Protein backbone atom coordinates (compact mmCIF):
# COMPACT_ATOMS: atom_id res chain seq x y z
CA UNK A 1 0.00 0.00 0.00
CA UNK A 2 1.07 3.53 -0.66
CA UNK A 3 -0.02 5.99 1.98
CA UNK A 4 -0.15 9.76 1.81
CA UNK A 5 0.43 11.47 5.15
CA UNK A 6 -0.67 15.04 5.71
CA UNK A 7 2.20 16.98 7.28
CA UNK A 8 1.18 19.24 10.12
CA UNK A 9 3.35 22.33 10.33
CA UNK A 10 3.27 25.83 11.66
CA UNK A 11 5.56 28.77 11.02
CA UNK A 12 8.06 26.59 9.20
CA UNK A 13 8.16 23.97 11.98
CA UNK A 14 7.13 20.39 11.40
CA UNK A 15 4.90 19.31 14.27
CA UNK A 16 5.56 16.15 16.31
CA UNK A 17 2.09 14.78 15.53
CA UNK A 18 3.29 14.21 11.95
CA UNK A 19 6.04 11.88 13.23
CA UNK A 20 3.48 9.66 14.94
CA UNK A 21 1.34 9.63 11.81
CA UNK A 22 4.40 8.50 9.80
CA UNK A 23 4.90 5.56 12.16
CA UNK A 24 1.24 4.59 11.79
CA UNK A 25 1.41 4.93 7.99
CA UNK A 26 4.64 2.91 7.79
CA UNK A 27 2.78 -0.12 9.17
CA UNK A 28 0.53 0.10 6.08
CA UNK A 29 3.31 0.34 3.51
CA UNK A 30 5.23 2.95 1.55
CA UNK A 31 5.03 6.41 3.14
CA UNK A 32 4.64 9.56 1.06
CA UNK A 33 4.05 12.96 2.59
CA UNK A 34 2.05 16.00 1.60
CA UNK A 35 3.32 19.42 2.66
CA UNK A 36 0.83 22.14 1.80
CA UNK A 37 1.62 25.74 2.62
CA UNK A 38 2.91 29.04 1.35
CA UNK A 39 6.50 30.29 1.08
CA UNK A 40 7.68 28.57 4.28
CA UNK A 41 6.57 25.15 3.09
CA UNK A 42 9.74 24.34 1.12
CA UNK A 43 11.81 24.27 4.33
CA UNK A 44 9.20 22.03 5.95
CA UNK A 45 9.36 19.68 2.96
CA UNK A 46 13.17 19.49 3.29
CA UNK A 47 12.78 18.59 6.97
CA UNK A 48 9.99 16.13 6.15
CA UNK A 49 12.20 14.32 3.62
CA UNK A 50 14.71 13.57 6.38
CA UNK A 51 12.15 11.75 8.56
CA UNK A 52 13.17 8.11 8.78
CA UNK A 53 11.15 5.86 6.48
CA UNK A 54 9.79 8.56 4.20
CA UNK A 55 9.80 8.12 0.43
CA UNK A 56 8.44 10.93 -1.67
CA UNK A 57 7.44 14.31 -0.26
CA UNK A 58 4.83 16.17 -2.30
CA UNK A 59 5.30 19.89 -1.84
CA UNK A 60 2.49 22.24 -2.79
CA UNK A 61 3.49 25.85 -2.31
CA UNK A 62 0.80 28.40 -2.91
CA UNK A 63 -0.59 31.45 -1.14
CA UNK A 64 -4.02 29.78 -1.04
CA UNK A 65 -2.54 27.01 1.13
CA UNK A 66 -1.00 29.37 3.69
CA UNK A 67 -3.25 28.49 6.58
CA UNK A 68 -4.14 25.00 5.45
CA UNK A 69 -7.78 25.87 4.88
CA UNK A 70 -9.68 22.61 4.36
CA UNK A 71 -11.47 23.99 1.29
CA UNK A 72 -8.15 24.45 -0.54
CA UNK A 73 -6.11 21.54 0.86
CA UNK A 74 -8.75 18.81 0.40
CA UNK A 75 -8.97 19.00 -3.45
CA UNK A 76 -5.16 18.93 -3.59
CA UNK A 77 -5.03 15.81 -1.40
CA UNK A 78 -7.79 14.18 -3.43
CA UNK A 79 -5.88 14.77 -6.67
CA UNK A 80 -2.84 13.01 -5.17
CA UNK A 81 -4.94 10.08 -3.94
CA UNK A 82 -5.08 8.62 -7.45
CA UNK A 83 -1.64 7.22 -6.80
CA UNK A 84 -2.20 6.27 -3.16
CA UNK A 85 -4.23 3.69 -1.24
CA UNK A 86 -4.56 5.45 2.09
CA UNK A 87 -4.66 8.99 3.43
CA UNK A 88 -3.40 9.44 6.98
CA UNK A 89 -3.64 12.64 9.00
CA UNK A 90 -2.75 13.24 12.64
CA UNK A 91 -5.90 13.60 14.77
CA UNK A 92 -5.13 17.25 15.53
CA UNK A 93 -7.57 20.08 14.89
CA UNK A 94 -5.96 20.52 11.44
CA UNK A 95 -6.20 16.81 10.59
CA UNK A 96 -9.74 16.52 11.92
CA UNK A 97 -10.76 19.52 9.84
CA UNK A 98 -9.28 18.33 6.54
CA UNK A 99 -9.44 14.50 6.52
CA UNK A 100 -13.26 14.04 6.52
CA UNK A 101 -13.49 16.50 3.65
CA UNK A 102 -10.99 14.36 1.73
CA UNK A 103 -12.86 11.17 2.67
CA UNK A 104 -16.23 12.45 1.45
CA UNK A 105 -14.72 13.65 -1.85
CA UNK A 106 -13.29 10.14 -2.30
CA UNK A 107 -16.63 8.63 -1.21
CA UNK A 108 -15.09 6.64 1.63
CA UNK A 109 -15.84 6.42 5.37
CA UNK A 110 -13.08 7.83 7.52
CA UNK A 111 -11.81 5.96 10.55
CA UNK A 112 -11.18 8.60 13.23
CA UNK A 113 -8.63 8.67 16.02
CA UNK A 114 -7.06 5.29 15.26
CA UNK A 115 -5.01 3.91 18.17
CA UNK A 116 -3.82 0.66 16.55
CA UNK A 117 -3.54 -0.78 13.06
CA UNK A 118 -4.20 -4.51 12.85
CA UNK A 119 -3.98 -4.93 9.10
CA UNK A 120 -4.39 -2.85 5.99
CA UNK A 121 -8.16 -2.69 6.45
CA UNK A 122 -8.55 -3.31 10.19
CA UNK A 123 -8.22 -0.53 12.73
CA UNK A 124 -8.78 0.01 16.45
CA UNK A 125 -10.34 3.19 17.82
CA UNK A 126 -11.92 4.37 21.07
CA UNK A 127 -15.63 5.22 21.17
CA UNK A 128 -17.91 6.57 23.92
CA UNK A 129 -15.23 8.87 25.33
CA UNK A 130 -12.76 6.02 25.56
CA UNK A 131 -15.13 3.81 27.56
CA UNK A 132 -15.13 1.23 24.78
CA UNK A 133 -12.57 0.19 22.20
CA UNK A 134 -13.87 -0.84 18.77
CA UNK A 135 -12.10 -2.87 16.12
CA UNK A 136 -13.45 -1.98 12.68
CA UNK A 137 -12.84 -3.36 9.21
CA UNK A 138 -13.19 -1.05 6.25
CA UNK A 139 -14.63 -2.24 2.94
CA UNK A 140 -13.65 0.96 1.11
CA UNK A 141 -11.08 0.71 -1.66
CA UNK A 142 -9.11 3.62 -0.26
CA UNK A 143 -8.67 4.23 3.44
CA UNK A 144 -8.83 7.60 5.17
CA UNK A 145 -7.62 7.66 8.77
CA UNK A 146 -6.83 10.15 11.45
CA UNK A 147 -4.43 8.73 14.00
CA UNK A 148 -4.05 9.53 17.66
CA UNK A 149 -0.52 10.83 18.11
CA UNK A 150 -0.09 9.46 21.63
CA UNK A 151 -0.78 5.91 20.47
CA UNK A 152 2.15 5.70 18.02
CA UNK A 153 5.86 6.28 18.59
CA UNK A 154 7.38 9.23 16.82
CA UNK A 155 9.40 8.39 13.72
CA UNK A 156 12.98 9.74 14.05
CA UNK A 157 13.33 13.22 12.55
CA UNK A 158 16.62 12.26 10.88
CA UNK A 159 17.79 9.25 8.91
CA UNK A 160 15.45 9.35 5.95
CA UNK A 161 16.34 10.29 2.41
CA UNK A 162 13.06 11.15 0.76
CA UNK A 163 12.83 13.16 -2.42
CA UNK A 164 10.87 16.39 -2.67
CA UNK A 165 8.60 16.73 -5.66
CA UNK A 166 6.64 19.89 -6.38
CA UNK A 167 2.96 19.53 -7.13
CA UNK A 168 0.48 22.23 -7.96
CA UNK A 169 -2.53 22.80 -5.80
CA UNK A 170 -6.06 23.23 -7.01
CA UNK A 171 -5.76 26.94 -6.33
CA UNK A 172 -8.01 29.08 -4.19
CA UNK A 173 -11.51 27.62 -4.20
CA UNK A 174 -12.87 31.03 -3.24
CA UNK A 175 -14.94 29.63 -0.39
CA UNK A 176 -13.02 30.74 2.66
CA UNK A 177 -10.27 33.03 3.81
CA UNK A 178 -8.07 33.31 6.86
CA UNK A 179 -8.71 36.38 9.00
CA UNK A 180 -6.41 35.98 11.98
CA UNK A 181 -5.29 33.85 14.87
CA UNK A 182 -4.78 34.26 18.57
CA UNK A 183 -2.21 31.72 19.51
CA UNK A 184 -1.61 31.38 23.24
CA UNK A 185 2.04 32.13 23.94
CA UNK A 186 3.79 29.58 26.11
CA UNK A 187 7.37 28.93 27.07
CA UNK A 188 6.41 25.52 28.36
CA UNK A 189 6.42 22.27 26.41
CA UNK A 190 3.48 21.63 24.12
CA UNK A 191 0.67 19.81 25.92
CA UNK A 192 0.22 16.91 23.50
CA UNK A 193 3.92 16.02 23.36
CA UNK A 194 5.00 16.88 26.94
CA UNK A 195 6.60 14.15 29.07
CA UNK A 196 5.06 15.60 32.22
CA UNK A 197 1.77 17.46 32.58
CA UNK A 198 0.41 19.27 35.62
CA UNK A 199 -3.32 19.84 35.28
CA UNK A 200 -5.60 21.95 37.42
CA UNK A 201 -9.33 21.70 38.03
CA UNK A 202 -12.15 23.73 39.43
CA UNK A 203 -10.87 23.37 42.98
CA UNK A 204 -8.19 25.96 42.18
CA UNK A 205 -10.96 28.53 42.66
CA UNK A 206 -9.72 31.36 40.44
CA UNK A 207 -7.43 32.18 37.53
CA UNK A 208 -4.99 33.86 39.94
CA UNK A 209 -4.79 30.81 42.16
CA UNK A 210 -4.51 28.54 39.12
CA UNK A 211 -1.36 30.37 38.06
CA UNK A 212 -0.12 30.84 41.60
CA UNK A 213 -0.28 27.12 42.47
CA UNK A 214 -0.06 25.21 39.17
CA UNK A 215 2.56 27.21 37.24
CA UNK A 216 5.46 26.95 39.75
CA UNK A 217 4.92 23.19 40.11
CA UNK A 218 4.86 22.78 36.32
CA UNK A 219 8.01 24.86 35.96
CA UNK A 220 9.80 22.85 38.64
CA UNK A 221 8.95 19.64 36.76
CA UNK A 222 9.56 21.08 33.28
CA UNK A 223 5.96 20.19 32.62
CA UNK A 224 3.20 21.45 30.36
CA UNK A 225 0.09 22.86 32.02
CA UNK A 226 -3.34 21.36 31.40
CA UNK A 227 -6.80 21.93 32.79
CA UNK A 228 -10.14 20.24 33.19
CA UNK A 229 -13.15 21.54 31.33
CA UNK A 230 -14.57 22.92 34.57
CA UNK A 231 -11.45 25.02 35.07
CA UNK A 232 -11.55 26.26 31.48
CA UNK A 233 -15.27 27.05 31.59
CA UNK A 234 -14.77 28.96 34.82
CA UNK A 235 -12.12 31.05 33.05
CA UNK A 236 -9.21 29.84 35.18
CA UNK A 237 -7.26 28.63 32.15
CA UNK A 238 -7.41 29.18 28.37
CA UNK A 239 -9.37 26.81 26.08
CA UNK A 240 -6.37 25.15 24.54
CA UNK A 241 -5.27 23.88 27.99
CA UNK A 242 -8.28 21.59 28.11
CA UNK A 243 -7.57 17.88 28.45
CA UNK A 244 -10.45 15.53 27.71
CA UNK A 245 -12.82 14.06 25.16
CA UNK A 246 -13.52 17.48 23.70
CA UNK A 247 -10.08 18.93 24.32
CA UNK A 248 -6.67 17.39 23.89
CA UNK A 249 -5.83 13.71 24.29
CA UNK A 250 -2.55 13.29 26.15
CA UNK A 251 -0.46 10.36 27.32
CA UNK A 252 2.59 11.74 29.15
CA UNK A 253 4.91 9.76 31.40
CA UNK A 254 3.58 11.62 34.41
CA UNK A 255 0.18 13.32 34.73
CA UNK A 256 -0.45 15.26 37.91
CA UNK A 257 -4.16 16.03 38.41
CA UNK A 258 -4.64 18.78 40.97
CA UNK A 259 -8.15 19.50 42.22
CA UNK A 260 -9.71 17.52 39.37
CA UNK A 261 -12.60 15.21 40.30
CA UNK A 262 -12.17 12.98 37.25
CA UNK A 263 -15.36 13.14 35.17
CA UNK A 264 -15.43 10.54 32.36
CA UNK A 265 -14.91 13.25 29.75
CA UNK A 266 -11.68 14.27 31.45
CA UNK A 267 -10.47 10.69 31.95
CA UNK A 268 -10.97 10.09 28.20
CA UNK A 269 -8.20 12.60 27.59
CA UNK A 270 -5.56 11.36 30.01
CA UNK A 271 -6.14 7.81 31.20
CA UNK A 272 -3.43 6.41 28.94
CA UNK A 273 -0.79 8.39 30.83
CA UNK A 274 1.95 6.12 32.19
CA UNK A 275 1.75 7.35 35.76
CA UNK A 276 -1.15 9.34 37.18
CA UNK A 277 -0.86 11.29 40.41
CA UNK A 278 -3.99 12.82 41.92
CA UNK A 279 -4.13 15.47 44.60
CA UNK A 280 -7.67 16.04 45.81
CA UNK A 281 -9.38 16.72 49.10
CA UNK A 282 -12.31 14.41 48.34
CA UNK A 283 -11.10 10.88 48.90
CA UNK A 284 -14.08 9.49 46.97
CA UNK A 285 -13.31 11.53 43.83
CA UNK A 286 -13.40 9.27 40.72
CA UNK A 287 -9.88 10.42 39.80
CA UNK A 288 -8.53 8.13 42.55
CA UNK A 289 -9.88 5.11 40.66
CA UNK A 290 -7.38 5.69 37.86
CA UNK A 291 -4.58 7.35 39.84
CA UNK A 292 -1.45 5.30 40.53
CA UNK A 293 -0.59 7.52 43.44
CA UNK A 294 -3.20 9.49 45.31
CA UNK A 295 -2.71 12.16 47.93
CA UNK A 296 -5.81 13.23 49.84
CA UNK A 297 -5.72 16.73 51.24
CA UNK A 298 -5.87 20.47 50.69
CA UNK A 299 -4.14 21.37 47.44
CA UNK A 300 -3.43 24.88 48.69
CA UNK A 301 -1.13 23.34 51.32
CA UNK A 302 0.11 20.27 49.44
CA UNK A 303 1.02 21.83 46.09
CA UNK A 304 3.34 24.53 47.50
CA UNK A 305 4.94 21.91 49.75
CA UNK A 306 5.46 19.60 46.79
CA UNK A 307 6.87 22.43 44.66
CA UNK A 308 9.29 23.38 47.39
CA UNK A 309 10.50 19.87 48.11
CA UNK A 310 11.10 18.87 44.51
Amino acid at each position, binding site marked *: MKTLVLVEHENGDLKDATLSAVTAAASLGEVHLLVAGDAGAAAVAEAAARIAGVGKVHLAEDASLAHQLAENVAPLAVSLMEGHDAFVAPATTTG*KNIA*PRVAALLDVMQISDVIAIEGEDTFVRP*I*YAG*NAIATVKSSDAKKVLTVRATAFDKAPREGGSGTVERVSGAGDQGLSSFV*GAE*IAASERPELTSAKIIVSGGRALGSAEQFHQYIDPLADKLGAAVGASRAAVDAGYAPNDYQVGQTG*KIVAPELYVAVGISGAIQHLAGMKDSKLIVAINKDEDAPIFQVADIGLVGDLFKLVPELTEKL
Partner: protein
Amino acid sequence: MKLLVPVKRVIDYNVKPRVKADGTGVDLANVKMSMNPFDEIAVEEAIRLKEKGVATEIVVVSIGPAKAQETLRTALAMGADRAILVQTDDNVEPLAVAKILTKIAAEEQPGMVILGKQAIDDDSNQTGQMLAALLGWAQGTFASKVEVEGEAVSVTREVDGGLETVRLKLPAIVTTDLRLNEPRYASLPNIMKAKSKPLATKSPADYGVDIAPRLTTLQVREPSKREAGVKVGSVDELIDRLRTVGVIG
Protein backbone atom coordinates in the same frame (compact mmCIF):
# COMPACT_ATOMS: atom_id res chain seq x y z
CA MET B 1 -32.04 32.91 5.85
CA LYS B 2 -33.14 29.45 6.73
CA LEU B 3 -31.01 27.37 9.07
CA LEU B 4 -30.74 23.60 9.02
CA VAL B 5 -29.68 21.94 12.28
CA PRO B 6 -29.03 18.20 12.37
CA VAL B 7 -29.37 16.63 15.83
CA LYS B 8 -28.54 13.15 17.11
CA ARG B 9 -30.05 11.04 19.86
CA VAL B 10 -27.22 9.57 21.90
CA ILE B 11 -26.56 8.01 25.29
CA ASP B 12 -26.81 10.70 27.96
CA TYR B 13 -23.38 12.19 28.63
CA ASN B 14 -23.64 11.47 32.35
CA VAL B 15 -24.13 7.74 31.85
CA LYS B 16 -21.09 5.51 32.00
CA PRO B 17 -21.41 3.21 28.98
CA ARG B 18 -21.20 -0.54 29.56
CA VAL B 19 -19.68 -2.83 26.97
CA LYS B 20 -21.79 -5.91 26.20
CA ALA B 21 -20.28 -9.18 27.39
CA ASP B 22 -20.42 -10.69 23.89
CA GLY B 23 -18.24 -7.90 22.48
CA THR B 24 -20.80 -6.74 19.91
CA GLY B 25 -21.24 -3.21 21.16
CA VAL B 26 -22.29 -0.98 24.02
CA ASP B 27 -25.42 -1.89 25.96
CA LEU B 28 -28.06 0.77 25.19
CA ALA B 29 -31.10 -1.10 26.54
CA ASN B 30 -32.83 0.92 29.27
CA VAL B 31 -30.12 3.56 29.21
CA LYS B 32 -31.04 7.23 29.42
CA MET B 33 -30.75 8.89 26.01
CA SER B 34 -30.54 12.61 25.26
CA MET B 35 -29.67 15.08 22.55
CA ASN B 36 -25.96 15.06 21.77
CA PRO B 37 -24.53 17.98 23.83
CA PHE B 38 -22.81 19.61 20.83
CA ASP B 39 -26.13 19.52 18.93
CA GLU B 40 -27.87 21.37 21.78
CA ILE B 41 -25.27 24.07 21.27
CA ALA B 42 -26.03 24.06 17.53
CA VAL B 43 -29.77 24.44 18.17
CA GLU B 44 -29.11 27.24 20.66
CA GLU B 45 -26.90 29.10 18.18
CA ALA B 46 -29.57 28.83 15.49
CA ILE B 47 -32.18 30.23 17.88
CA ARG B 48 -29.90 33.12 18.83
CA LEU B 49 -29.39 33.93 15.13
CA LYS B 50 -33.16 33.95 14.73
CA GLU B 51 -33.58 36.19 17.77
CA LYS B 52 -31.05 38.61 16.22
CA GLY B 53 -33.11 38.69 13.04
CA VAL B 54 -30.40 36.97 11.00
CA ALA B 55 -32.31 33.73 10.56
CA THR B 56 -35.93 33.39 9.53
CA GLU B 57 -36.66 29.71 10.03
CA ILE B 58 -34.97 26.82 11.85
CA VAL B 59 -35.44 23.30 10.53
CA VAL B 60 -34.10 20.47 12.70
CA VAL B 61 -33.34 17.04 11.30
CA SER B 62 -32.57 13.73 12.93
CA ILE B 63 -31.67 10.44 11.31
CA GLY B 64 -32.37 7.43 13.48
CA PRO B 65 -35.03 5.33 15.19
CA ALA B 66 -38.61 6.43 15.89
CA LYS B 67 -37.51 7.55 19.35
CA ALA B 68 -35.33 10.25 17.79
CA GLN B 69 -38.67 12.12 17.61
CA GLU B 70 -38.13 12.94 21.29
CA THR B 71 -34.84 14.60 20.41
CA LEU B 72 -36.54 16.62 17.67
CA ARG B 73 -39.34 17.65 20.06
CA THR B 74 -36.68 18.87 22.49
CA ALA B 75 -35.20 21.03 19.72
CA LEU B 76 -38.68 22.33 18.83
CA ALA B 77 -39.29 23.15 22.48
CA MET B 78 -36.03 25.10 22.59
CA GLY B 79 -37.25 27.21 19.65
CA ALA B 80 -36.82 25.40 16.32
CA ASP B 81 -39.73 25.84 13.89
CA ARG B 82 -40.16 22.44 12.31
CA ALA B 83 -38.58 19.03 12.21
CA ILE B 84 -37.75 16.22 9.82
CA LEU B 85 -37.18 12.68 11.06
CA VAL B 86 -35.44 10.35 8.65
CA GLN B 87 -36.46 7.14 10.31
CA THR B 88 -34.31 4.03 10.25
CA ASP B 89 -33.28 1.38 12.73
CA ASP B 90 -30.04 0.76 10.86
CA ASN B 91 -26.72 2.13 12.01
CA VAL B 92 -26.06 5.13 9.78
CA GLU B 93 -22.42 6.16 9.38
CA PRO B 94 -21.34 9.82 9.09
CA LEU B 95 -20.81 9.50 5.32
CA ALA B 96 -24.40 8.28 4.81
CA VAL B 97 -25.74 10.93 7.20
CA ALA B 98 -23.88 13.57 5.20
CA LYS B 99 -25.37 12.21 1.96
CA ILE B 100 -28.93 12.33 3.34
CA LEU B 101 -28.30 15.85 4.65
CA THR B 102 -27.00 16.87 1.22
CA LYS B 103 -30.38 15.92 -0.25
CA ILE B 104 -32.28 17.72 2.50
CA ALA B 105 -30.12 20.81 2.00
CA ALA B 106 -30.93 20.73 -1.72
CA GLU B 107 -34.65 20.69 -0.87
CA GLU B 108 -34.59 23.21 1.94
CA GLN B 109 -31.92 25.59 0.56
CA PRO B 110 -30.61 26.72 3.96
CA GLY B 111 -28.19 29.64 4.22
CA MET B 112 -26.22 27.76 6.82
CA VAL B 113 -26.15 24.28 8.34
CA ILE B 114 -25.08 24.20 11.99
CA LEU B 115 -23.98 20.83 13.42
CA GLY B 116 -22.27 19.67 16.58
CA LYS B 117 -18.56 19.05 16.11
CA GLN B 118 -18.89 15.40 17.15
CA ALA B 119 -21.37 12.95 18.60
CA ILE B 120 -20.35 11.60 21.99
CA ASP B 121 -21.18 8.00 21.05
CA ASP B 122 -19.03 7.30 17.97
CA ASP B 123 -16.70 10.28 18.57
CA SER B 124 -16.16 10.54 14.80
CA ASN B 125 -16.05 14.30 14.21
CA GLN B 126 -16.76 13.90 10.48
CA THR B 127 -20.35 14.65 9.46
CA GLY B 128 -20.07 18.45 9.14
CA GLN B 129 -16.86 18.32 7.13
CA MET B 130 -18.27 15.58 4.88
CA LEU B 131 -21.46 17.54 4.29
CA ALA B 132 -19.42 20.62 3.38
CA ALA B 133 -17.39 18.53 0.93
CA LEU B 134 -20.45 17.00 -0.74
CA LEU B 135 -22.21 20.36 -1.06
CA GLY B 136 -19.02 22.13 -2.13
CA TRP B 137 -19.50 24.67 0.66
CA ALA B 138 -17.05 26.27 3.07
CA GLN B 139 -16.71 24.86 6.58
CA GLY B 140 -16.16 26.53 9.93
CA THR B 141 -15.40 23.67 12.29
CA PHE B 142 -15.04 23.78 16.11
CA ALA B 143 -16.71 27.20 16.26
CA SER B 144 -16.59 29.27 19.42
CA LYS B 145 -18.02 32.41 17.78
CA VAL B 146 -20.23 32.89 14.73
CA GLU B 147 -21.02 36.26 13.16
CA VAL B 148 -23.02 36.60 9.97
CA GLU B 149 -21.90 39.62 7.94
CA GLY B 150 -23.97 40.00 4.78
CA GLU B 151 -23.04 37.30 2.29
CA ALA B 152 -20.37 35.84 4.55
CA VAL B 153 -19.99 34.39 8.01
CA SER B 154 -17.03 34.97 10.26
CA VAL B 155 -16.23 31.93 12.41
CA THR B 156 -13.76 31.84 15.29
CA ARG B 157 -12.46 28.30 15.61
CA GLU B 158 -10.87 26.52 18.56
CA VAL B 159 -7.62 25.13 17.22
CA ASP B 160 -4.78 23.34 19.01
CA GLY B 161 -2.68 26.43 19.72
CA GLY B 162 -5.53 28.81 20.53
CA LEU B 163 -8.12 30.50 18.32
CA GLU B 164 -8.33 31.12 14.60
CA THR B 165 -10.83 33.22 12.67
CA VAL B 166 -11.93 32.41 9.15
CA ARG B 167 -14.39 34.14 6.84
CA LEU B 168 -16.67 31.85 4.87
CA LYS B 169 -18.80 32.51 1.84
CA LEU B 170 -22.47 31.65 2.45
CA PRO B 171 -24.06 29.15 2.28
CA ALA B 172 -21.67 27.44 4.69
CA ILE B 173 -21.32 24.69 7.28
CA VAL B 174 -20.57 25.48 10.92
CA THR B 175 -19.77 22.85 13.56
CA THR B 176 -20.06 23.87 17.20
CA ASP B 177 -17.53 23.61 19.98
CA LEU B 178 -18.41 23.65 23.66
CA ARG B 179 -17.77 27.29 24.31
CA LEU B 180 -19.97 28.68 21.54
CA ASN B 181 -22.88 29.20 23.92
CA GLU B 182 -24.82 27.82 26.85
CA PRO B 183 -27.97 26.06 25.60
CA ARG B 184 -31.26 27.11 27.17
CA TYR B 185 -33.69 24.80 28.90
CA ALA B 186 -37.04 24.28 27.28
CA SER B 187 -39.81 25.70 29.49
CA LEU B 188 -42.92 23.66 30.22
CA PRO B 189 -45.23 25.86 28.07
CA ASN B 190 -42.73 25.59 25.21
CA ILE B 191 -42.58 21.81 25.60
CA MET B 192 -46.37 21.77 25.30
CA LYS B 193 -46.29 24.09 22.27
CA ALA B 194 -43.60 21.95 20.61
CA LYS B 195 -46.04 19.06 20.45
CA SER B 196 -48.07 20.86 17.80
CA LYS B 197 -45.13 22.00 15.67
CA PRO B 198 -44.77 20.17 12.33
CA LEU B 199 -42.67 17.01 12.25
CA ALA B 200 -42.33 15.19 8.92
CA THR B 201 -41.29 11.55 8.89
CA LYS B 202 -39.21 10.27 5.98
CA SER B 203 -37.00 7.30 5.24
CA PRO B 204 -33.49 7.10 3.76
CA ALA B 205 -35.07 5.57 0.63
CA ASP B 206 -37.09 8.79 0.12
CA TYR B 207 -33.79 10.50 -0.54
CA GLY B 208 -32.40 7.68 -2.65
CA VAL B 209 -29.38 7.31 -0.41
CA ASP B 210 -27.65 3.98 0.10
CA ILE B 211 -26.91 3.76 3.81
CA ALA B 212 -25.09 0.40 3.73
CA PRO B 213 -22.21 0.70 6.19
CA ARG B 214 -18.65 0.79 4.87
CA LEU B 215 -17.21 -0.25 8.20
CA THR B 216 -17.90 -3.52 9.96
CA THR B 217 -17.42 -3.59 13.70
CA LEU B 218 -15.52 -6.77 14.47
CA GLN B 219 -15.36 -6.30 18.20
CA VAL B 220 -16.09 -3.83 20.98
CA ARG B 221 -14.19 -4.35 24.19
CA GLU B 222 -13.61 -2.63 27.49
CA PRO B 223 -10.50 -0.46 27.65
CA SER B 224 -7.68 -2.08 29.57
CA LYS B 225 -8.10 -1.46 33.25
CA ARG B 226 -5.50 0.45 35.17
CA GLU B 227 -4.06 -1.41 38.11
CA ALA B 228 -5.27 -0.18 41.48
CA GLY B 229 -3.09 2.60 42.77
CA VAL B 230 -1.99 3.51 46.26
CA LYS B 231 -2.81 6.43 48.46
CA VAL B 232 0.10 8.07 50.17
CA GLY B 233 -0.06 9.99 53.43
CA SER B 234 2.31 12.86 52.75
CA VAL B 235 4.13 14.91 50.14
CA ASP B 236 7.43 13.27 51.16
CA GLU B 237 6.00 9.84 50.52
CA LEU B 238 4.71 11.02 47.12
CA ILE B 239 8.14 12.36 46.14
CA ASP B 240 9.78 9.12 47.32
CA ARG B 241 7.52 7.08 45.12
CA LEU B 242 8.04 9.31 42.09
CA ARG B 243 11.82 8.99 42.59
CA THR B 244 11.58 5.21 42.94
CA VAL B 245 9.69 4.94 39.66
CA GLY B 246 12.22 7.27 38.10
CA VAL B 247 9.86 9.83 36.59
CA ILE B 248 11.61 12.60 38.52
CA GLY B 249 15.29 12.96 39.26
